[in-house]
């Protein structure tokens, strides 16, 4: 009885203290808000990786020094709830002045059109914060390594720019330098595929000999396919170019699917078979059953020194350096080159990594301090600030000419390279599903390439077809919407002939691909049913 009174007392005291704390915080916040002379710019993102918030904080303080009377606040929201958070804030009109809109998060075409400001005018103007740099006087659009062509920046359906990217991303092989030295000695990282496979074999042999259980590569359903698809894509580079009907040097997955229906490649095409052989060779070095594991499991294996290597993107670099209590090294994915005796004849060479940008910020319509917000956005996207952001965050820069810091230099995108090949999984989700379901036949020690091929052979034509039909459905949706947009653009009070022309070009291109795909779907269906 006495004990329960004590607990009740403690509970009430905690409750009272919480109330006082909450009340004083609320009062402090409202008094801050009442300070009309202070302009507050808030920006929201979901990047909880190490270093990012520090970088934003430091940049925010710099901006405040440059603009007395302006206060910058960052709001970091967990990725898991980001979409719902943005939607709620947008609908409630309480959204921050800047919102991260990368990877489609928080920003479908409709959300952007309804709630965000098009940045097309801003994109054409020079960025004043680039004054005194090599980008002085250059249109903002051309100061980014992708020319603002990424999905997070430009929306082809809306024909407007909506986001400014602050980073770029590449994929590399990370390794545990400390473990590496203790296991294989002072050996440099592999420079080609054969060296990599020999290294993995050596680790397995050491395990057998010593009873250690070091995994050569930490695998998961999200990490492993990245390595395997890249390996597959390297041995199908020449095949891919042979399927380039339109001569643009860059066939897309739809072309690959159609060329399969037209019988210009199949599972017995040598490059495809070799693609599965190289995938098996690499797949044997992940932990058994890796395809059932999530990304966090693979990260756990790596940072706990249970695995020597892991394949992942530059975005993990800063987190790994914080989480791991060992020295981390990074090397390019060990893909075969033209000199490889087995795979070389099918390879063109290291693939161009282009510039996959991200961490894009957009401006919602309800920004109370629009001019100041746009100014802060220009500041974030300027040469000196992007350089600082990259240095502190450990993420790659997105602005032209910014040299990555020494610790992220190995992630710098390879600008000059060849177009990668393909793996059949790229055709679409149905094809990917049957291959993934049969993956165990490929990567288990008792499995084989032949077993995988036998398993998927009968189903593949059907899944390629259903993937193409799905693509057609999506394309009809876009084309239908463009019909209405086009008429509306035509009838607006002040129509823009340039935009109408762009819309026509875009719609006719889509419709042409749609017509060709429909033609092939029907012709090849008739051919197979008449057999």
């Amino acid at each position, binding site marked *: 009885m006495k004990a329960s009174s004590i607990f009740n007392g403690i509970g009430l005291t905690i409750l009272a203290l919480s109330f006082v704390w909450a009340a004083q915080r609320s009062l402090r916040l409202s008094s801050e808000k009442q300070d009309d002379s202070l302009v507050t710019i808030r920006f929201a993102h979901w990047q909880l990786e190490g270093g990012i918030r520090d970088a934003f904080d430091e940049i925010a303080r710099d901006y405040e020094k440059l603009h007395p009377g302006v206060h910058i606040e960052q709001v970091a929201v967990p990725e898991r709830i980001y979409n719902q958070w943005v939607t709620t804030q947008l609908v409630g009109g309480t959204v921050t002045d800047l919102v991260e809109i990368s990877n489609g998060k928080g920003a479908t*075409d*409709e959300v952007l*059109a*309804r709630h965000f400001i098009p940045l097309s005018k801003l994109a054409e103007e020079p960025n004043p914060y680039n004054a005194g740099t090599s980008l002085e006087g250059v249109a903002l659009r051309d100061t980014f*390594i*992708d*020319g603002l*062509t990424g999905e997070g920046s430009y929306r*082809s*359906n*809306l024909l407007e720019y909506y986001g400014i990217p602050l980073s770029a991303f590449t994929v590399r092989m990370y390794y545990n330098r400390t473990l590496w030295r203790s296991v294989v000695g002072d050996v440099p990282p592999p420079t080609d595929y054969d060296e990599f496979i020999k290294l993995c074999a050596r680790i397995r042999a050491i395990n057998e000999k010593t009873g250690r259980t070091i995994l050569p590569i930490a695998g998961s359903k999200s990490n492993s396919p990245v390595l395997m698809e890249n390996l597959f894509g390297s041995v199908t580079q020449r095949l891919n170019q042979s399927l380039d*009907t*339109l*001569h*643009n*040097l*860059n066939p897309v997955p739809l072309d690959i699917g159609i060329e399969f229906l037209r019988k210009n490649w199949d599972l017995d095409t040598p490059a495809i078979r070799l693609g599965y052989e190289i995938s098996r060779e690499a797949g044997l070095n992940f932990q058994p059953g890796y395809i059932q594991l999530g990304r966090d499991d693979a990260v756990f294996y790596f940072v706990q020194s249970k695995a020597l290597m892991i394949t992942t993107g530059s975005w993990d670099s800063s987190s790994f350096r914080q989480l791991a209590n060992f020295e981390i090294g990074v090397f390019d994915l060990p893909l075969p080159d033209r000199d490889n005796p087995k795979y070389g004849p099918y390879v*063109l060479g290291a693939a*161009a990594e*282009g*510039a996959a940008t991200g961490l894009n910020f957009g401006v919602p319509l309800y920004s109370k301090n629009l001019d100041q917000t746009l100014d802060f956005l220009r500041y974030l996207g300027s040469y000196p600030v992007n350089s600082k952001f990259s240095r502190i965050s450990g993420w790659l820069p997105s602005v032209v000419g910014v040299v990555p810091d020494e610790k992220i230099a190995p992630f710098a995108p390879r*600008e*000059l*390279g*060849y*177009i990668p090949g393909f793996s059949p999984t790229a055709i679409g989700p149905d094809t990917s599903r049957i291959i993934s379901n049969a993956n165990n036949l490929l990567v288990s020690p008792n499995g084989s390439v032949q077993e995988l091929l036998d398993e998927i052979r009968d189903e593949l034509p059907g899944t390629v077809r259903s993937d193409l039909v799905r693509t057609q459905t999506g394309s*009809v949706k876009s*084309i*239908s*919407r463009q*019909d*209405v*947009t086009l*008429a*509306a*653009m*035509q*009838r*607006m*009070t002040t129509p823009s002939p*340039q935009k109408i*022309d*762009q819309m*026509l*070009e*875009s719609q*006719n*291109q889509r*419709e*042409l691909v749609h*017509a*060709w795909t*429909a*033609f092939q779907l*029907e*012709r090849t269906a*008739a051919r197979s049913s008449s057999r």
Partner: protein
Amino acid sequence: MPHLVRLILCLSLASSAYATDTLGQAWQEAAAGLVGDAHKYFITQSGPEAELGQALSFLVIQPKTNANLDRATELLTELSKRPVTDEISQAARYYLARIAHMHRQRVDLPGAKAIYDALIADAPDSFYGSLAQVKVAMIDLYDPKASNQELRARFDRLIPVAKAIADKSARRDLSIILADTALYFEYGDDQALALLLQANQAGITQSAAQADILVRIGELARLTGKPALAREYYQRLLDTFPRDRRRLMVMENLASLPTAK
């Protein structure tokens, strides 16, 4: 009395200004992708323009039902009865064809083609007439029921049409369609090259499409033995798109060209 007339006049002007303003705003919203909002405006208005807006918004508002498509068809059919020179009538006829061509679950290509053809016959140089020429070309060239000989004959018939079409956008798009068709059906690389050059001259608007056409002209010129032309277009790609992923391949193909004498 004069006061009453003035008042009625003012009210009627104000109301028409309001209607125009509302319609303008509705079109603006539809152009920005907010078709649901635009639809709410259109259905409160009357007159041919508002009816066109209603019909078009019925094509995409969710859920997309046959009833909505039928209602759009009804409205457009009524509007299409206006004089053939009237722009609203031309738009209505064009979108009736679009419903048959793209919007119905079961497409009716012969039905769409008939409407496009009639529009082209009545208003060949109008905005919608030019658009219809491009769309009908796609139906003709990719008709799975036509024989290969018939498809080739249709292609040949369209070559002079693409050259002569007055509207620059339509000329560009028709030329690209024919170039791609020439490559898909192996009608000849020389033919495809000439058509891509024609399209490029008409003006490509999107930067990705611009990079693509420069590479394609370069490649086709190289493959058909026109090194000077290949060199020109490869170089244009390298100068205009310093970060294109195909640069290395273009540079290698450029270096492989026989040197000019």
